[in-house]
């Protein structure tokens, strides 16, 4: 058996920051996709005809 692998404070930090970070990004993206602001015009751009 290897040495103790109990989750340390730094391990907790990495795990929580990583998991909460990607979860927050996913929720933020889906919120913008599913509930777009009604008055938001398309941003200018495109190469045109």
């Amino acid at each position, binding site marked *: *058996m*290897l*040495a*103790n*692998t*109990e*989750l*340390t404070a*730094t*391990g*907790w*930090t*990495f*795990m929580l920051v*990583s*998991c909460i970070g*990607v*979860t927050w*990004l*996913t929720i*933020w*993206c*889906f919120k*913008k*996709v*599913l509930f*777009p602001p009604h008055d*938001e015009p*398309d*941003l*200018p*751009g*495109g*190469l*045109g*005809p």
Partner: protein
Amino acid sequence: MTNQPTQQWGSRLGVILAVAGSAVGLGNFLRFPGNAAEHGGGAFMIPYFLALIFLGIPIGWAEWAMGRYGGRKGFHSAPAIMGVWCKGGWGRFAGVLGVLVPLGVYFYYVIIEAWCLYYFWLYCTGGIGLTPGADAPTQAQQARDFFTTVIGQSENGSTFSNGMSGMLWSFLVTAALNVWFVYRGLSKGIETVCKYAMPVMAVLGLVVLARVLTLDAPPGTTGQTVNDGLGYLWNPHWEELTNFKTWLAAAGQIFFSLSVGFGVIINYSSYMKKKDDVVLSGLTASATNEFFEVVLGGLITVTASVVFVGVTLTGQSTGSSFSLGFNTLPVVFAQMPGGVFFGASFFLILFLAAITSSLSMLQPSQAFFEESLGISRGKATALVTVWGLAGNAFVLWYSKGLTALDTIDFWVGAFFILVMAGLQIFAFGWIFGLDRGIAEAHAGAHMHIPKFFQFVIKYVAPAYLLVVLVGFCVNNMPGYIDTLRGNVTTAVAANDATKKQIAADYPAPAKLTYAWTQVDGPPVALGDAAKDKTSFPFHEPPDARNFKVKFALDVSDGTAKKTYPVEVEVDVESPGTARLTWGFLLLTIVGLVAIMLVGAKRWRAQGRDLDGRQPAND
């Protein structure tokens, strides 16, 4: 062109889930945790997220924009779209990679998908037959033996030797499902599957995660807790950050996980309209993939494995996705209360992850055949089915040592993906022009690509990618070239768990010396065994095949000596099969190039702007 109506996505959410479904695959649940555990634990997340920001997201945005622009010019295949972006014929040749990669990966990916379906079926009907109450190492050996039989690893053609086995039925069902959904089309087939499969995967994943996080090791087993399992994966090992391989592994994980450079995003986004957003859609698909990878992949598999089979067995399996998924986790399910249910759930998750990916591998070829040869969707589906089945049959038959699978995976599923992504980002930032490319991406966008990322797309991502490509080739290519040349070398090395044990036993900074003694297996020349390393290479005799060799590794710091067992499973890649596989790949490449040339001739005759001289219509 045929008179069929142009295909299109049913909804914006549909295309996002389809791209996310393509990205979420076995690598999220098996490869990511193994990679992280082997390369620094929590510290691995630093190069991992840097690669996401500087490689994955920017290249993904470029690919989304390229695909949609190509679609507005009436093209849906990577060769045609790359021709437009690269303003010439060489782009079309380069774009053939965008068809070869998904088709080539499909050759073996469906086989792995069939393994998942077969295991799911077995768990639905009681499990894979591990002896109840046996200890973890015994069950691990049983799981290994069972898996070896299922995949036919011991002999070419052995998958077929027992007639229509469960594995073959699983393969036929899997292949038929893939063909059927692709034939149904983008909206009715791929989009519908992903709309159901992605939420089901997320819910099942959260159920399994909840169970894993509330596990208690049964009395008399490892004595490890969930806290230990999480610590095994997430505690940072800072020293790994100074190892180039850690950065390479992180970039590779991001790269292959997000499906960039794969030829899929460029095809999927070609069915979008100019007013459709690609920036937010691309970011959402990437974020969804990251959720499945970091949250579900990072918390479930290794944690459960440490609790039930301990650190040592887990350490031996993290280097291989197949080993972790099909050898170690069945032991976990055999020891876990309600393990049959959770085993079935887990392999259903893997199967759904795999089928949403494999569907995306057929679609680019189908679109390519349809628009190059001017044939109907039905005929294009028939052609891709025959070609795909030929590749599947090749990989299924040449199963010994998984040489065919491994050869295609390395050259097509890794090397060509890096090359394709490099060509795409170069075409976007340097040939088409960054300003024009960004303007195209911003058409219909609900968010802007920040200025910072525009600099990244032009300079950082190509340079980063070049370093990754060179590092990848230096680290991996010599072995594969040696295999093709028949010069097979195996590295005898202490595994990660043993190395960590040595580091724990000799914490003081002392110069250690190593001495190797062979204790079992066919004789191995120890002349190359260095005294200052925990590994050494040996050349296998030409007639060597799969066998095990056991060594005793004596470690000394000058005062105290300790001995560690090292067992090496020599899984010899057959040079003959590797060459045959390359022959098959060359035939595929020649066929695809020929079809591309036929297509280019047709498009030119139709007066289409195949060299991107004119602006796109809306």
